[in-house]
């Protein structure tokens, strides 16, 4: 898969996304975009520099070779004509003649006269000269040929000298030329390699620069996914990037709007329910106060109504409370209060009966800035939870914790299953043991509100196992000003 494409996700998309679709892909596309750009730049630089090097090499080679051949031929003709004029005098010693010839370094002369062969070197004689060229020259045609002798490149020029019944051959070593060409080739190949590497480096750098804004986008997306919905991208005056930033920001705006609309909807619904609920509760209150005047069956109906109305009212209040947290409009009303006393009062108000409140001596009298109403709700909801599902509260403990205080509500059990310990703080989560005790059910929001209230204070709440199959609901509150951590 190259680049990005759109996909509409359905159920189970997460699973597929985790498995990934890398399995069927070819190695090339498995490389990242940056690696691919790097490789492409490198390959491009290689192709270009190799072509340039090749052209340079062959042009240089042609030129050098041509120069050399011209020099060789000129020399051979000069020597042949020298040999001819010398051989005209019959007294001439052929060996002396060969020695006197002006030869280039590394070149050897071979002379044939009437079937006799003479050479300046023992190693190079008649046999050193390729047969075809030899016969061609002996038949009266001047010729030249490149060949390899003992592993080194040579060039031989053969010139018939018919006036003295001879043929003059000169063998030139091209070793030095070959070495020069080899060095040139090496230099060019080196240059090509350097160019390739430079291309790859430029590719990597350029793609890095081009992708840097993408990293910013990805960071912003992560931040938004993490819940900070008001993060936006700012594009400097770059016209290419501002389009990306604008559409990203539009997406974030749309997302925020949708989330807010949903949260607002819950809030609006609960709000609209208030007026009829007020009429209902007050009217029911009137009925209730005349309960004794009612026939038995009506009395029973009023009792049922009263119970459900109370639950309904709580549910609406708690929904409103939660939607306030969701819309971010929840505010802490901080008061400086004595923690131990607050818990004692809240436990009493919540009807925890005679469950003792043990305040650790080291923090008795400690004052914290908290939202009294919210902490009271926390205690009340924990008490209610214990009453509904765990035989009531056994005792309360208020003790110091690192950086704050800890309030523990211990119940009579049974303990919450390990797998459910996080989930019971979710909204409307009904656990396995839910509803086993008592006939009245909670609203299903109690513990999730506990979590929200505690979170607003910058604290945390969890449940752990106490000795003897009981639960310890632990609320930890920081002693620093919670106003700074509230979102």
């Amino acid at each position, binding site marked *: 898969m190259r680049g990005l494409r759109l996909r509409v996700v359905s159920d189970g998309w997460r699973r597929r996304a985790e498995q990934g679709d890398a399995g069927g892909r070819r190695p090339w596309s498995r490389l990242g975009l940056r690696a691919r750009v790097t490789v492409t730049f490198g390959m491009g630089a290689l192709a270009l520099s190799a072509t340039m090097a090749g052209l340079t090499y062959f042009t240089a080679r042609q030129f050098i070779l041509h120069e050399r051949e011209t020099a060789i031929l000129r020399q051979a003709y000069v020597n042949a004509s020298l040999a001819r004029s010398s051989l005209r005098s019959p007294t001439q010693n052929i060996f002396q003649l060969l020695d006197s010839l002006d030869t280039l370094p590394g070149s050897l002369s071979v002379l044939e006269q009437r079937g006799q062969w003479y050479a300046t070197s023992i190693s190079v004689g008649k046999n050193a000269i390729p047969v075809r060229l030899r016969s061609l020259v002996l038949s009266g045609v001047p010729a030249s040929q490149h060949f390899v002798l003992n592993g080194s490149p040579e060039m031989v020029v053969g010139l018939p000298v018919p006036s003295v019944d001879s043929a003059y051959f000169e063998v030139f070593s091209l070793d030095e030329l070959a070495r020069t060409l080899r060095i040139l080739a090496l230099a060019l190949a080196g240059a090509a390699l350097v160019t390739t590497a430079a291309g790859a480096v430029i590719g990597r750098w350029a793609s890095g620069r081009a992708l840097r804004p993408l990293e910013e986008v990805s960071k912003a997306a992560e931040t938004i996914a993490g819940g900070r919905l008001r993060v936006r991208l700012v594009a400097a005056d770059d016209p290419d990037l501002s389009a990306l930033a604008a559409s990203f920001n539009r997406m974030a705006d749309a997302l925020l709007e949708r989330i807010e609309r949903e949260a607002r909807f819950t809030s609006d619904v609960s*709000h609209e329910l*208030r*007026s*009829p*609920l*007020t*009429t*209902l*509760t*007050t*009217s029911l*209150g*009137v009925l209730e*106060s*005349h309960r004794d005047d009612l026939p038995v069956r009506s009395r029973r109906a009023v009792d049922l109504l009263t119970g459900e109305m109370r639950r309904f*009212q709580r549910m*609406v209040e708690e929904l*409103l409370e939660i939607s*306030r947290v969701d819309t971010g409009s*929840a*505010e802490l*009303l901080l*008061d*400086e209060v004595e923690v131990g006393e*607050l818990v004692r*009062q*809240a436990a009493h*108000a919540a009807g925890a009966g005679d469950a003792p409140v043990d305040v650790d001596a080291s923090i008795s009298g400690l*004052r914290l800035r908290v939202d*009294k*109403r919210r902490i*009271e709700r926390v205690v009340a909801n924990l008490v209610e939870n214990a009453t509904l599902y765990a035989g009531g509260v056994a005792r309360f403990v208020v003790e110091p914790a690192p950086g704050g205080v800890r309030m523990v509500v211990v119940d009579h059990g049974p303990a919450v299953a390990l797998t459910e310990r996080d989930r019971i703080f979710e909204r409307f989560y009904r656990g396995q043991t839910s509803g086993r005790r008592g006939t009245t059910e909670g609203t299903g929001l109690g513990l999730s509100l506990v979590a929200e209230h505690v979170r607003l204070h910058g604290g945390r709440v969890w449940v752990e196992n106490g000795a003897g199959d009981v639960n310890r609901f632990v609320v930890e509150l920081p002693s620093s000003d919670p106003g700074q951590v509230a979102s």
Partner: protein
Amino acid sequence: MTARLLIVEDDERIRASTRLALEDEGYDVDEAGSGEVALERFTEQPSDVVLIDLMLPGMDGFECCRQLRRTSAVPVIMVTARTDTHDVVAGLEAGADDYVTKPFVAKELAARIRALLRRARSVDEPSVLTFGDVEVRPDEGTVQRAGDEVHCTRTEFRLLCELAANPGKVLSREQLLDRVWGYDYFGDGRLVDVHIRRLRTKIEPDPANPRHILTVRGMGYKLTA
């Protein structure tokens, strides 16, 4: 003598049901569907306690409360939708004595009304409390500053009496809520704060730098001469 209440609420059904419930509690109940009507009714026949919904069509609850306060020190309870908005503080600053949140329970509302109607004076209080140039006469329900009459609402007066009867002693918000409003431990501290602020503007020479009613940070309030 039965106390007379005025309910200012635009929702007819809430009005009717609240009236039923409060009549059961033994009050004479008058109704008004808007702030304008409420002010007219009150001028015709003053009530002992007024209940004002903040969300009214036309003149809103805040304005209604302010208009009422110009001519009367009648105890006012406002009905608000939320406790943690600025509505509560704004309502208290407009002159309300207390508030309830919708949906309210009639019994609790009746308790709030009873607390507001309760007489503040206890028998063993001296007949005159003085500090600085301020004179408080609990028997007569009057406050004088440098010889001039200071107009206080009933709640402000009771708050001032509590503070003046305990000079130099720090009273916590909870204590004041309990003694003046009849709230338990979980009353709203803002009730005290706003009323203290209003009291200061009436009796302090410089309300921004109070000399008599002092805030003791993290503890509460105290009165010094």
